């Protein structure tokens, strides 16, 4: 293949199709603008560098004919002109070169956009915080942009004094800011039976991690004088059309559940429940009810639609596990990952994410040979409870086929299972809570594809 790096300056030998198909299509359709002209010019430079040297170009021959990268030898459009003034974009937006990495729907998964999912582009994200605009979306009856001045939260049920709070009230209360992941219970659902989708965006993109700011739910429960003896459960309800309802355990409610309005330093985005949502750390995302308007304390679970009909796990014997809330330890390599192609042999940083709903990640092992041998990866800090943890490990690709896997362990001693081990207990019809080890096959020509192994 033609995609080896010839030298550190990154002169990549151009193949015969030195202009890629989409660019030539774009030129045919829209003509040459400055952007495309620039791109073409670079392609020519790269191609002619190779033609001058020939296919068997050695590094020394290259050095003789190659004067240098024109991007270094010449001034650029950026270094000889004045840039834009401050506050040109008062609410900043990403570079215009970053439009490839966006939330995307998985075609055919759902029929209606209002009851659907947009997946987070994990294949290109760094660290552990998901940019707010790329947090995955899951709505059950569409999203609304609700006026915070008209928003109310009611706490009632088995309490001494049922109360109504405005956003003014809630934002005066003592607040906490904590980083937590939110993962849909159905993340990786398509992979229970067999490989079904090509990239990590669609296999694992229903997870995101943010710093959430808000009032501990326990503060509000105390303020209303909840029934400490008989109040075993809390119902959370949304103000959207679906009136999303979920039962939360009182143990969780008093531990670390947040009535959140802040997300990554700004207010929640509308798609994520602006102006108020529940954040139930470690529990499947559906419990983190968006547009939160009511909390009811009760003595029994509430048997809501999304704990009776959906978000329940069918077992092979026909029985259905109900109230399966916790997201167990899981990890995935985000790069290199399915649908990507390595740009040449040599050094790569294998990077990925690990998380557990039961506490902290303690170790992530990585295999490059389909699980035969494993090496322990570096965990980047911070390693936080019920938050994403970033792992990295060095890898030199020698050009031979490989199968990349990652395996997470948490502080309960639990080890992320293989898909066949999960199937052995739960079959293939569970839909929810697939936390199996993900395998990515690297072909000898650099293409990475989604596979499952024994």
């Amino acid at each position, binding site marked *: *293949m*033609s*995609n080896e790096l010839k030298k550190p300056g990154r002169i990549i030998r151009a193949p015969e199709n030195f202009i*890629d198909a*989409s660019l030539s299509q774009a030129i045919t359709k829209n003509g040459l603008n400055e952007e495309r002209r620039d791109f073409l010019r670079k392609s020519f430079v790269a191609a002619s560098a190779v033609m001058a040297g020939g296919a068997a170009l050695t590094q020394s021959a290259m050095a003789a004919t190659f004067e240098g990268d024109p991007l270094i030898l010449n001034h650029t459009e950026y270094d000889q002109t004045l840039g834009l*003034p401050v506050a040109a974009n008062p609410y900043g937006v990403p570079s215009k*070169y*970053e439009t*490839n*990495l966006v939330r*995307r729907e998985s075609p*055919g998964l759902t029929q209606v956009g209002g009851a659907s999912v947009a997946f987070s582009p994990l294949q290109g994200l760094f660290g552990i915080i998901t940019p707010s605009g790329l947090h995955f979306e899951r709505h059950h*009856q569409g999203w609304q942009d609700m006026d915070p001045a008209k928003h109310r939260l*009611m706490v*009632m049920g088995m309490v001494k004094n*049922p*109360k*109504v709070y405005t956003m003014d009230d809630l934002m005066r*209360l*003592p607040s906490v800011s904590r980083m937590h992941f939110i993962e849909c219970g159905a993340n990786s659902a398509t992979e229970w039976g067999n*490989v*079904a*989708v090509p990239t990590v965006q669609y296999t694992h993109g229903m997870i995101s991690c943010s710093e959430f700011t808000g009032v501990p739910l326990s503060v509000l429960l105390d303020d209303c004088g909840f029934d400490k003896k008989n109040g075993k459960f809390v119902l959370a309800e949304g103000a959207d059309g679906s*009136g999303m*309802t979920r039962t939360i355990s009182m143990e969780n409610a008093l*531990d670390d559940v947040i009535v959140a309005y802040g997300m990554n330093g700004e207010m929640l985005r509308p798609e994520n429940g602006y102006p108020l949502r529940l954040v139930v750390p470690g529990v499947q995302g559906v419990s983190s009810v968006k547009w939160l308007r009511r909390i*009811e304390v009760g003595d029994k*679970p509430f*048997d809501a*639609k999304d704990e*009776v*009909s959906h978000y329940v796990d069918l077992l092979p*014997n*026909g*029985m*259905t*596990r*109900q*109230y399966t*809330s*916790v997201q167990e330890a899981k990890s995935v390599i985000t790069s290199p990952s399915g649908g*990507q*192609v*390595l740009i040449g042999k040599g050094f790569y940083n294998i990077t990925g994410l690990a998380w557990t709903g039961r506490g902290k990640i303690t*170790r992530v092992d990585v295999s490059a*040979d389909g*699980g*035969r041998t494993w090496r322990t990866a570096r965990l980047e800090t911070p390693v936080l409870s019920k938050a994403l943890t970033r792992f990295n490990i060095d890898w030199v690709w020698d050009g031979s086929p490989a199968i990349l896997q990652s*395996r997470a362990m948490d502080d309960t001693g*639990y*080890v992320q*299972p293989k898909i066949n*081990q999960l199937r052995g207990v739960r079959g293939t019809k569970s839909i929810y809570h697939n936390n199996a080890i993900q395998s990515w*096959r690297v072909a000898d020509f650099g*293409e990475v*594809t*989604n*596979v*499952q192994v*024994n």
Partner: protein
Amino acid sequence: MYKLTKTILTVSLLALSFAASAKELPGIGRTATVKEIAAWDIDVRGDFKGIPKGAGSVALGNKVWDEKCASCHGTFGESMEVFGPIVGGTTKEDMKTGHVLALADGSEPKRSTLMKVATLSTIWDYINRAMPWNAPKTLTTDEVYGVVAYILNMGEILPADFVLSNENIAEVQKTMPNRNGMLSELDSKNTSDHNMWKVKGKGDVKNPPCMKDCVKKVEITSVLPDYACDAHGNIAEQNRHFGAVRGADTLLACNEHPNLAELNRMHNTKYQPDASGSKQPVTFAMTKPTTVAPEIAETTGVEMLKQNKCTACHGMTKKIVGPGFSEVTAKYKGDAKAEAHLIDVVTNGGSGVWGGSMPPHGHIKAEHIKTMVQAILSGAK
């Protein structure tokens, strides 16, 4: 000494007032009224706590269904076009046992609501709070009873002349086909070896963290199926155009002739079979790292006017310091030389025309000035 004591006293009083405010929250929130609680407390629990008084016949439900439900869920509640099926896959035998056999033997690959739901209250609650899809919470209480009755009638659980009400709904619950089909993680006898409700529960799968010689022979058991190949669009457009990797243009796994793609790769030549089976060179896509430049949304002239702070002195229509842009548009309408003239004025400055002076803006890129002037002259908004 006296002063010191007083200071200490003041500090401890302050501390007390903090402690008090942490327990009680004066001035925060207010007591909910009885009417407010009634308006929002609509949930109905498995034991029917919370269900309002009312009644609806199968016939009423049928009428509402045809008007408001059938377009999504199908005339018989069987449709999978928009949502999962409501009705289907349950039998008289299931009604006796309370276990839906089709969930165990897999004879109905698409699980209907009546196959899954153990608690009738859940169907009542969900229709009441979230249906119809585009107008939730608009059905009357009696209509909700009627629609629930009609669904059960379509599922051959209730007869056509049945009237469902708050008084008989608990009896009907006893015939729900999957009423005994749930293993609640809240029930400790179901979860002796694991628990997914409690944070401190154990997993149900054990995977020893082996490091060496863990698998004798690695076998690939599943790859991307053909039907999924092109479904997610061009992966090259879903990755950056720079960095450690690119997105694949066409995955080898998705190639129409994977064996030929393999030949292409080995010989770096393009082949396609002809009738005789020999290989002829043709254009044939092979997997390669494809760089797809992102779609660039060009900044419009009007956006540039704002970004370059022109709008600090010029209103879109009205004069601020200098003339409004629409005033300029009107003045130079039909003037062929206007564009060159205004580019000169913006770049080098000018005075006299509008009774003030325009400072030079030579630091702005010439092409941007041209775009902005064209936007003004064309009356862009």
